[in-house]
């Protein structure tokens, strides 16, 4: 007989093994879909791997794609730490993109423009995130639902801009005017798209880790999430912590949008984000809400996305496989997390 037994503590190596296990299970499960599509599983995954990590150019492409998901992953991880259920990273990203695009189109010295784009973009994301947090604190509105609904509102606002005042009068396409050339983020390696925003994302992860693990605000965020009653008893202003968390989370998601405008697209269009905000939830869960883990988790999803397109071209398997992989990975990770709460024990001798 086996039974589940509650665990009191988990060994540290679980943090590495569980996401790895979840990813392996995910890839095995999704190989079924590749087979259904009539392609060779080994071949398809092989193409994905070589197209995303096979050579130095592929690696830079994967890094470029990972940057927005590092930011949204950090945004979600910090929010979820406080049990502020911010599912609105997508809308916050779009707000950051629109705001930074507006700033970037103003002629001014390049470095000033980039700095202002980051500041204004982060502020825009923070303001959007403040809405569900305020509604929760003041009106007890469920933050999941309001942040989700807000994503649609922001998306339509973006569409109104690019089909209205921002519309390209020359081509008639619904795309915003480009930002100034001087505001384009510098490229680090000639001939690639690896821009400075990727480095900022990679630095943001340890900074967020420091904030959560080593600062007073981080402590308050953790206590508020784990035990709001104890937090209140301990003199923490839970409502204020939730609002601060929302500002921080929204600012990070906003920066994801800034990077896409300043470093990748240089303008705003309707499909500027292929769901990076939602991917942030997958990243955060794979990282076990640890900011440091957001980097490898985002790199994995980025590799899957970059690889899926090449795989689709080579084998005809729809590139939407990457969406299925994301959803499956999230669910697999949740199941894997059971091992942190329980262990399987043999009970009694089999007779």
């Amino acid at each position: 007989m086996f039974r589940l037994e509650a665990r009191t503590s988990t060994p540290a190596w679980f943090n590495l093994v569980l996401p790895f296990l979840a990813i392996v299970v995910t890839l095995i499960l999704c190989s079924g879909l590749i087979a259904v599509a009539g392609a060779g599983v080994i071949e398809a995954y092989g193409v994905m791997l070589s197209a995303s990590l096979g050579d130095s150019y592929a690696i830079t492409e994967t890094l470029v794609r990972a940057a927005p998901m590092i930011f949204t992953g950090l945004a979600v991880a910090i929010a979820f730490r406080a049990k502020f259920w911010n599912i609105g990273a997508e809308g916050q990203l779009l707000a950051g993109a629109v705001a930074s695009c507006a700033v970037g189109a103003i002629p001014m010295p390049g470095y000033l423009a980039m700095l202002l784009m980051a500041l204004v973009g982060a502020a825009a994301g923070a303001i959007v995130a403040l809405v569900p947090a305020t509604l929760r604190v003041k009106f007890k509105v469920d933050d999941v639902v309001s942040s989700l609904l807000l994503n649609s509102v922001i998306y339509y606002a973006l569409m109104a801009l690019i089909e209205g005042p921002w519309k390209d009068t020359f081509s008639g396409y619904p795309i915003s005017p480009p930002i100034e050339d001087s505001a384009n983020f510098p490229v680090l390696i000639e001939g690639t798209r690896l821009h400075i925003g990727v480095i900022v994302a990679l630095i943001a992860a340890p900074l967020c880790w420091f904030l959560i693990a080593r600062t007073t605000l981080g402590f308050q965020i953790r206590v508020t999430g784990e035990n709001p009653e104890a937090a209140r008893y301990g003199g923490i202003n839970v409502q204020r912590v939730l609002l601060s968390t929302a500002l921080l989370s929204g600012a990070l998601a906003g920066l994801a949008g800034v990077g896409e405008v300043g470093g990748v697209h240089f303008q705003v269009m309707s499909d500027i984000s292929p769901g990076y905000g939602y991917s942030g939830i997958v990243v955060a869960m794979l990282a076990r809400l640890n900011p440091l883990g957001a980097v490898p988790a985002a790199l994995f999803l980025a590799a899957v996305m970059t690889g899926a397109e090449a795989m689709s071209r080579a084998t005809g398997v729809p590139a939407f496989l990457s969406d299925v992989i994301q959803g499956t990975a999230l669910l697999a990770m949740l199941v894997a997390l059971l091992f942190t709460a329980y262990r399987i024990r043999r009970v009694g001798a089999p007779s």
Partner: protein
Amino acid sequence: MSAVFEQIFQVGFLAAIIRIATPLAFATLGEMFSERAGVLNLGIEGIMLLSAMAGFTAANLSGSLWLGVLAAVLVGALMGALHALFTVALGLSQHVCGIGVTLFSSGLAYFLYRLIFGQQSVPPSIDGFKPVPIPLLSDIPILGPAVFNQFTLVYLAILAIPLAAFVLYRTPWGLSVRMVGENPRAADSAGVSVIATRFQAVILGGALMGLAGAFLTMAQFNAFTFGVVSGRGWVAIALVVFGRWDPWRSAGAALLFAFVDALQLRMQASGLGHIPYEAFLMLPFIFTIAAMAFMSRNAVAPSALLKPFRREER
């Protein structure tokens, strides 16, 4: 200005409200059953999308619309079972599992649709459901053509509301659902299987979400697009709160939302051309958020919502 209003409140306006409300009513009732049993189902958006795709595909390939509806309901129930497996049997976070189910179902819907139909310049469509006038009732002025000259699925939705209320408030099973959602410990002591009842409620909820998806691709649009659901699932979750977890009120909330949505569609079409149409598209969402702010302070959710049940934990 009066010409604008005349254009808005035509005879067809009422019919449009009913049509918009139908998928929302199915989805809202589905989410309500799930939540009354104590399980928030954020998978609703993805479940509706996958059901819409499955229904459309089955109808397109078989030529039978009702086979399509059946496929959509079965897929919805199956995805409900998946959500229940994670949240009820394994007791995992309902928030995150729901998002996981939505991401997974949406991804699967996109993947399978592209696999089956490829990338066609003209998206495939079907000959969808046609309105079926009900004799005598459809002759009532104004109300008749609007309410009683509709798709069969609309009538089904209208019947589903009292039926849901009856099941929830007047049957032993409905009592079990309410008990496991309010006080699972007491339900367990009374001999009600908390796990089984929650599974059943979430599966029933999924099946209703499947009907909502079926309506979108087989009656409303007669085609499947990636944006066919576009937030209707999230709206349904808000409507359950707005409807205070009651079938009648939830259906009323769906009708109210449909009114706002139909109104914005009319305003788009009418002479208010200088306002971008996206402003109108936003309107129902802003309305929903505002309504929640207005209602949530006094809303009392099922006590055991979001709380997994494990027998051994006391």
